[in-house]
């Protein structure tokens, strides 16, 4: 036992000494459990970025340390963030798939002198929890608001909203309602479904009975989306002409093979499609597909992670590898670059990413695979959610 | 002459660390009717349970029709020809009478069930009743018939008359005697009702604290009154 203790101590000391020129980045995300796919996408985005840009920035070498929080678990997230900062000596915290996990770690940042780059968590308020938070993903408000515009312009006037009964769902419901009512439409009914809904048939019946001309839906990606889309078709809602509006979580690329033909024609709004046509994206997709192994698993969190790495690299450049969180964050305020998703910039005030939101349609590519084909671009969208919260 | 239907050599058995049966040996000829007597708690039930393979054997050997069955599991012993009617009868409560009997068939055709109904017509009347709904006497008939259907060469009966009305006891004992007279079944009977047991048996063993304290014939039991006095606590048989 004693020998073991010594060995552990020695190993810790050795690590500290040998890797002095290394800038470590701690990434917290769901790498096992029901959301393991999204964690894998974090890693793919990060690996892709490092494969394309190398691991050296000046004299410094970048090293990534992953920590697993399989489900939203703020206590675990905070403990791991603290461990990463203090024990592993990371200079940057990144990742964060779930909002509460980000919220729990945010109060650490200032004293730890560590910036946090959110690669997914999509509740607007996170950036207000610390001035050291930068977000490279999206917010629900950001991706949903254009949906309302699309719906209204389609001529749809009466909409029923269907969301999962949890905070992002509530956000989506509010964002759509705000946008749609502002445009002049009516929300005829608002349904909130339990997270563990397996059978959506009764919901479809309810939608039919509501007399709505269209439905807006937000569900966490994964099994529920599959069930929902299948039920939408099987219960004849598409044939009945009830239009389908949703943000892109519902048709994330990794779910498309499972959704199959049922999803064809579904239109969603989102910040990123793997089918986005640009040289940046082609390069990114190639690298990320290689990193993730199975190309079918690639999905939107990878681009949040990819751009997150871009921001972190810029921060490291700006600080020369020294730990100075405020300087690092200041350096990326207003930063703009060409992301695989299109032109983006970091808003100087909110530190949230300003980006294009695209209206896409699920279609078949030439090789027979399913893609989100971009139809229309809403340029330079900020986060309306922050204003709404105030 | 073929081997003895059952031969027990220096059998010891018990539950946990306690020995309930100690060094028991005996052997029976075909068609024998053995009565095992003794007061409560002297090991009679344990003897039958260990022959059936349901108690932890500590030492000794058991041979059935010349074959060593000592290490065999209960089911294998049953297939070798051992029938066991336990004291608690163990009728399957959620099975009907017919299903109860069916379990005992050991692969014989369903038509063989008629044998059981011939032996105990009352079971035939109740064939679709659940085991749990039978009276004590009916349960005993069912338990016995169920074992006999498998055509055992050695049948172990543990207190079959316990708690039964006299008229049913007579019916049962008559059936046992018929069985034994048919000659191809060896029966070991544990019974509290000494008179009935002695009327039935041609061999007697008396157990005392897990050991065989006395062995002989029913006539000898009746003659040697001190045997009864000493081991069974009975003042005399009249």
């Amino acid at each position: 036992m004693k020998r073991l203790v010594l060995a552990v101590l020695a190993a810790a000391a050795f690590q500290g000494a040998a890797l002095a020129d290394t800038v470590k980045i701690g990434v917290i995300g769901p790498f096992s459990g029901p959301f393991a796919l999204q964690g894998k996408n974090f890693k793919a985005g990060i690996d892709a970025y490092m494969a394309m840009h190398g691991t050296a920035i000046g004299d410094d070498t970048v090293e990534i340390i992953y920590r697993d929080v399989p489900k939203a678990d703020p206590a675990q997230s905070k403990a791991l963030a603290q461990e990463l900062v203090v024990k592993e000596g990371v200079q940057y915290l990144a990742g964060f798939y779930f909002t509460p996990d980000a919220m729990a770690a945010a109060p650490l940042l200032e004293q730890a002198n560590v910036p946090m780059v959110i690669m997914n968590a999509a509740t607007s308020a996170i950036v207000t929890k610390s001035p050291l938070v930068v977000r490279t993903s999206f917010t629900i408000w950001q991706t949903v608001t254009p949906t309302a515009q699309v719906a209204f312009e389609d001529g749809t006037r009466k909409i029923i909203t269907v969301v999962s009964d949890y905070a992002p769902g509530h956000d989506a419901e509010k964002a759509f309602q705000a946008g749609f009512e502002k445009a002049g439409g009516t929300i005829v009914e608002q349904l909130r479904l339990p997270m563990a809904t397996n059978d959506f048939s009764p919901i479809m019946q309810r939608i039919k009975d509501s007399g709505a001309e269209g439905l807006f839906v937000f569900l966490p990606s994964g099994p529920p989306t599959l069930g929902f889309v299948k039920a939408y078709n099987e219960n004849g809602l598409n044939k009945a002409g009830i239009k389908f509006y949703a943000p892109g979580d519902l048709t994330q690329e990794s779910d498309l093979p499972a959704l199959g033909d049922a999803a064809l024609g579904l239109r969603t709004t989102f910040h990123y499609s793997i089918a986005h046509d640009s040289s940046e994206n082609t390069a990114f997709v190639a690298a990320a597909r290689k990193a993730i192994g199975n190309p079918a698993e690639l999905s939107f969190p990878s681009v949040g992670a990819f751009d997150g790495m871009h921001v972190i690299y810029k921060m490291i450049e700006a600080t020369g590898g020294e730990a100075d969180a405020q300087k690092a964050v200041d350096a990326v305020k207003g930063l703009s670059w060409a992301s695989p998703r299109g032109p983006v910039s970091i808003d100087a005030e909110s530190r949230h990413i300003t980006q294009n939101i695209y209206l896409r349609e699920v279609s078949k590519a030439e090789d027979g695979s399913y893609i989100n084909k971009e139809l229309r671009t809403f340029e330079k969208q900020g986060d309306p959610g922050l204003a709404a919260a105030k | 002459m073929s081997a003895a239907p059952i031969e027990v050599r220096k059998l010891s058995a018990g539950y946990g660390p306690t020995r309930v049966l100690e060094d028991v040996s005996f052997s029976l000829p075909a068609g024998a009717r053995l009565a095992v007597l003794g007061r409560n708690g002297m090991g009679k039930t344990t003897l039958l349970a260990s022959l059936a393979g349901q108690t932890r054997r500590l030492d000794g050997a058991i041979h059935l029709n010349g074959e060593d069955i000592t290490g065999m599991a209960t089911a294998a012993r049953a297939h070798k020809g051992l029938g066991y009617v336990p004291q608690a009868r163990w009728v399957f409560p959620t099975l009907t009478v017919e299903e109860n009997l069916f379990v005992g068939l050991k692969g014989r055709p369903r038509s063989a069930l008629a044998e059981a109904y011939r032996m105990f017509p009352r079971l035939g009347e109740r064939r679709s009743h659940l085991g749990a709904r039978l009276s004590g006497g009916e349960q005993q008939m069912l338990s016995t018939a169920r074992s006999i259907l498998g055509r055992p060469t050695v049948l172990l009966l543990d207190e079959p008359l316990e708690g039964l009305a006299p008229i049913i006891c007579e019916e049962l004992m008559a059936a046992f005697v018929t069985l034994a007279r048919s000659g191809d079944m060896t029966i070991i009977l544990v019974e509290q009702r000494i008179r009935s047991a002695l009327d039935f048996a041609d061999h007697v063993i008396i157990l005392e604290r897990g050991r065989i304290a006395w062995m002989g014939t029913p006539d000898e039991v009746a003659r040697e009154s001190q045997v009864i006095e000493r081991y069974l606590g009975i003042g005399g048989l009249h």
Partner: protein
Amino acid sequence: MSPILEARNLQKAFGGLKVIDDVSLRLEPGDRVALIGPNGAGKTTFVNLVTGNLRSDSGDVLIGGASVTHSGPAERAHRGLVRSFQVTRLFQDMTAEEHLALAILERDGKTHRLAGSYRAMPQVMREIGILLSTLGLGTVAHRKVREIAYGQQRLLEIALALALRPKVLLLDEPAAGVPQSDTGRIEAALADLPADLAVLMIEHDMDLVFRFARRVVVLAAGAIIFDGPPQAVTRDQRVREAYLGSYANVRRAH
């Protein structure tokens, strides 16, 4: 004197089979009653009905004149009706001393105390000491039940019952399965039971019955067929019939 325990017209059937058929019985303080009957006569069922472990189909049970028909075993125990079990039901992981302490504390309404230990209660310790020495269990006071001999476990059953200071004691075969060497101890313990205690004992061992009981009740096929002094029981024709062929009817009264 008014009866301390009274069972009135108890009935109980299992799946259509009447096990207890209209049984009534009265016990008075100081009574020493033996309940006998052939196997399967319904003795244990009767005891379970009286203690409340089983619900009767009809009939009443009264303790000290008050009806407890609708009370559970806990309530009946609190009113002074205590039983021992035929097959020992002790707590395998507890010591003999702890058993008695638990009984005494429960009797005194102290088992819901969250702190303190019976060891710090001199009154309890004294009582435990007396009970242990009366029943000759002093040497095993600190042994767990699963480590002590069966005879001693039976003695502990009796001690446990006494620790509850019962008004009525039901003993279910107190000597069953006990080696000869220990039965003396049990008999002595029975002989020393408090004089005003009413005792109902189920027993197969007729020697013990004749030495202990001043009244014998015979149960057969769920009904009482005899209730009288021990001397009369072996001469009773119905009893002899009920026991036809079994030990009891050929036994001489000593």
